[in-house]
């Protein structure tokens, strides 16, 4: 969903909106392009709505806000539209293939419901459910508007399923379970936090060009009643299943091959699966990779990928430190605004005092001067507060990308675990073939053949066939993941570039705009007090 930064302003916002760009939010069924009338630097929230906006000229006179109408707290940072995925600059809209498709999700109306459990403990526990409202015109969906109730567990399930089905993709991370917070915080605070986080998460999913069309997401958003997504069973029961199977594998391993009859299981990493034997083998393989003298039979050869990976790691580090400094910058801006406000108030009090107690004219003159300074200081304090709210919004991109980097790392992990599976199967194959060779050599020495050995060889050849199939399946999966990685990396590069350019522009324009306003405020006072200036 292409959203623009200025959509986060509520109607009560005193600052003029960008030139009448139509918000998609209020017109979901419009089939026209949402990008009406957007000047190229619409990231400037302070852009004057004067009739002759030359969008690229930042020398437009920025209107000072009218303080009488200023409603502080009108900056709704958590408004649904403000954190909509990537802010694409309109100049790139042409390159977006889905510029007229939209998928808009909002989360609301938390309700406390009783857990229907078969537990022996009377007086069941509670959980919260949320109303998920979707507006869309995507073809995959059976309709344009949906309302379903989901709970957090359902979201976890969705996230897990997406992780399984879309290996190699940069899938946005779901909100934390926050067990500790849920105990410590006030309930309604926690619920509100969670609601906002869920909305952010679902919106990010909706913005992902591939995932927005996924079956899993569609079912989550569309299907009423209990969520039909099969939940992956928990680790413990999987381990149990695996433990039951293991002896059979070890004893009858020869006949069962490597035990990977179910090729679809190969599309998942070994860890967390039921196939304990497979886990052991892959673990052994990874140790061999790290410590063994012989190189594994297939290496991560894509140099370009490795380079990009390194660069991304570097990027992540730098991003992290910028994000930290951004936080302290915001704090410093907040502090100076506060102190200015306090100074202003102190002078207001002084002014009142001097005016009341005045016994001579010079006192009254002094009081008048003080009043001007006090008013200016209070104005400047307000400006700082507004500046900061905007700054937070812009620099929030940094935090967002830290989250994206986590998703990237997950995708890279998908790739390396798929590679490990392939390597393990390859080494299995080679050891099987080796055994066959040895048996053949031994049996050829016996005249007339060795019945038991021949039978053994036949069994091994079966295993080889099965293992070959498994290997081919794993290789296909690995290649698929590599492909996904590559596509996603390209998408990331492009979006990252655009997002950061917009972030910088927004930040810089914001700073410049507010600095100009402050300069005006103080210049007025300097004028008024210029009579005292030293010659």
């Amino acid at each position: 969903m292409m959203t623009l930064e200025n959509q986060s302003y509520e109607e009560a916002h005193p600052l003029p909106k960008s030139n009448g760009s139509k918000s998609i939010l209020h017109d979901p069924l419009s089939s026209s392009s949402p990008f009406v009338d957007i000047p190229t630097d619409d990231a400037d929230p302070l852009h004057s709505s004067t009739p002759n906006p030359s969008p690229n000229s930042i020398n437009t006179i920025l209107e000072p806000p009218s303080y009488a109408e200023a409603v502080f707290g009108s900056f709704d940072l958590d408004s649904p539209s403000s954190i909509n995925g990537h802010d694409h600059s309109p100049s790139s809209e042409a390159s977006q293939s889905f510029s007229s498709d939209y998928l808009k999700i909002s989360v609301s109306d938390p309700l406390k419901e009783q857990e229907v459990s078969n537990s022996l403990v009377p007086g069941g526990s509670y959980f919260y459910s949320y109303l998920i409202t979707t507006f869309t015109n995507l073809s995959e969906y059976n309709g344009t508007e949906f309302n379903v109730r989901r709970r957090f567990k359902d979201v976890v399930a969705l996230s897990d399923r997406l992780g399984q089905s879309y290996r190699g993709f940069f899938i946005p991370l779901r909100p934390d379970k926050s067990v500790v917070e849920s105990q410590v915080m006030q309930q309604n605070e926690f619920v509100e936090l969670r609601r906002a986080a869920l909305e952010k998460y679902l919106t990010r999913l909706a913005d992902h060009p591939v995932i927005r069309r996924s079956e899993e997401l569609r079912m989550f958003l569309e299907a009423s009643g209990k969520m039909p997504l099969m939940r992956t069973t928990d680790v413990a029961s999987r381990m149990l299943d695996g433990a039951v199977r293991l002896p059979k594998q070890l004893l009858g391993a020869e006949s069962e091959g490597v035990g990977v009859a179910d090729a679809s299981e190969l599309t998942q990493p070994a860890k967390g699966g039921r196939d304990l034997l497979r886990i052991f083998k892959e673990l052994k393989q990874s140790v061999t990779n790290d410590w063994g003298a012989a190189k594994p039979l297939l290496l991560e050869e894509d140099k370009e990928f490795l380079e990009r990976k390194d660069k991304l790691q570097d990027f992540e580090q730098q991003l992290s430190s910028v994000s930290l400094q951004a936080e302290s910058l915001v704090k410093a801006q907040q502090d100076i605004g506060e102190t200015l406000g306090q100074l202003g108030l102190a002078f207001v009090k002084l002014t009142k005092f001097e005016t009341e107690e005045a016994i001579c004219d010079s006192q009254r003159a002094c009081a008048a001067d003080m009043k001007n300074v006090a008013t200016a200081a209070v104005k400047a304090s307000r400006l700082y507060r507004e500046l900061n709210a905007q700054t937070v919004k812009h620099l929030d991109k940094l935090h967002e990308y830290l989250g994206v980097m986590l998703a990237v790392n997950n995708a890279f992990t998908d790739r390396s675990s798929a590679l490990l599976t392939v390597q393990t199967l390859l080494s299995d194959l080679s050891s099987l073939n080796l055994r066959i060779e040895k048996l053949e050599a031994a049996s050829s020495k016996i005249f007339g053949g060795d019945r038991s050995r021949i039978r053994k060889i036949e069994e091994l050849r079966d295993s080889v066939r099965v293992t070959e199939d498994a290997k081919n399946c794993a290789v296909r999966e690995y290649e698929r993941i590599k492909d996904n990685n590559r596509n996603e990396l390209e998408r990331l590069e492009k979006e990252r570039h655009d997002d950061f350019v917009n972030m910088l522009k927004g930040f810089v324009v914001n700073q410049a705009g507010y600095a100009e306003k402050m300069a005006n405020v103080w210049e007025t006072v300097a004028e008024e007090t210029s009579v005292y200036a030293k010659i």
Partner: protein
Amino acid sequence: MNVQQRSGSGPMAQSPRSPSSQPPYLTVSVSDPAKMGNGVQAYISYKVITKTNLPEYEGPEKIVIRRYNDFVWLRDRLFEKYKGVFIPPLPEKSTVEKFRFSAEFIEMRRQALDVFVNRIASHHELQQSYDLRMFLQADEQSMERARSQETGIFKKKPADFMQIFKDVQSRVSDVVLGKEKPLEESNPEYEKLKNYIFQLEDHLAEAQKHAYRLVKRHRELGQSLSDFGKAVTLLGNSEGNNLGKAFADLGAKSEILSAKLQREAHHLLMNFEEPLKDYVRAVQSIKATLSERANAFRHHCELAETIKFKEIDMNKLRLTRSEKLAEAEREYEELKADGAEATRRFETIVKLMNEEILRFQEQKTIDMGLAFHEFAKGQAHLAKGIADAWRSLLPKLESCST
């Protein structure tokens, strides 16, 4: 600071001895702080340069070396001799050891001392003081001798008198201390003035506190902007391409602005916070004068009492035709003279104070007006600099978006 004689006030204008074509002037400056001595004994000395054409002074220019305690000596002498006059305030002694020799502290103190001496030199009463002349001209040894000769009587800190005036409303503390209710003027104007001064101090102190914090905030913002800039530059370097350049530019600009903020912090300190501080000190000095006035009043009242009793005694003696009568009469006359003197002193103080209050208000309006002007100018200049710096980045950012 040049002393332009206020129209008609002060005897200097009528000096018959110098038919100079130039109007009389007395200019003083305090400069060139230098660290003297070592270790615990170390102190800062200042150059005090006097330029004048007044006949009482030796020569058109005189340079002497003075230290903080010399200024304190001058202030104390003036306080003793010129009761009723608001003696200009001095900067405080520093309590924090390591702060004592920081460049900023020394500069703040030098500025305050300069203002102090110049105010004395331009006050029509104080400028005639012998002690001032001594301060401005005596060699270092004489100065040291004079300083050490200060006996306990003169060495009373104005703050000591404050105990009695702790709260204007209740006299409980005095009862607790065993003192009788001290005699106070029942003049309503005077009451109003006292209330005004006390409340003014509170208001000013609060404003000054926030002004000082504002200086700190500028420094903090500068620091965090610098850190931010550095981190952004590193990010830009790892990014490469034109976006990376944009980041690096942002980082560079942040550093520049950080420096601007530090400069403004200093400007704010010297030209806004310090004048406010000075205002607070001035009000405290007025409180000291108020206590002098109260002392004089009490003295005058006590003497009046004593005289009354003496008169009664005397009349008793007269009736009994005692030999002690003559002595009593003599004592009575002495007491009457003392009483007259005390009354005169008190009335002088009252008269002076009334003038001083007006002068003080006028001067304060000018001083604060200038401070406000500097404050506003500084803030405007800073804001404009910030706006320009950020705006200069935009063309490059525009070219970044394809």
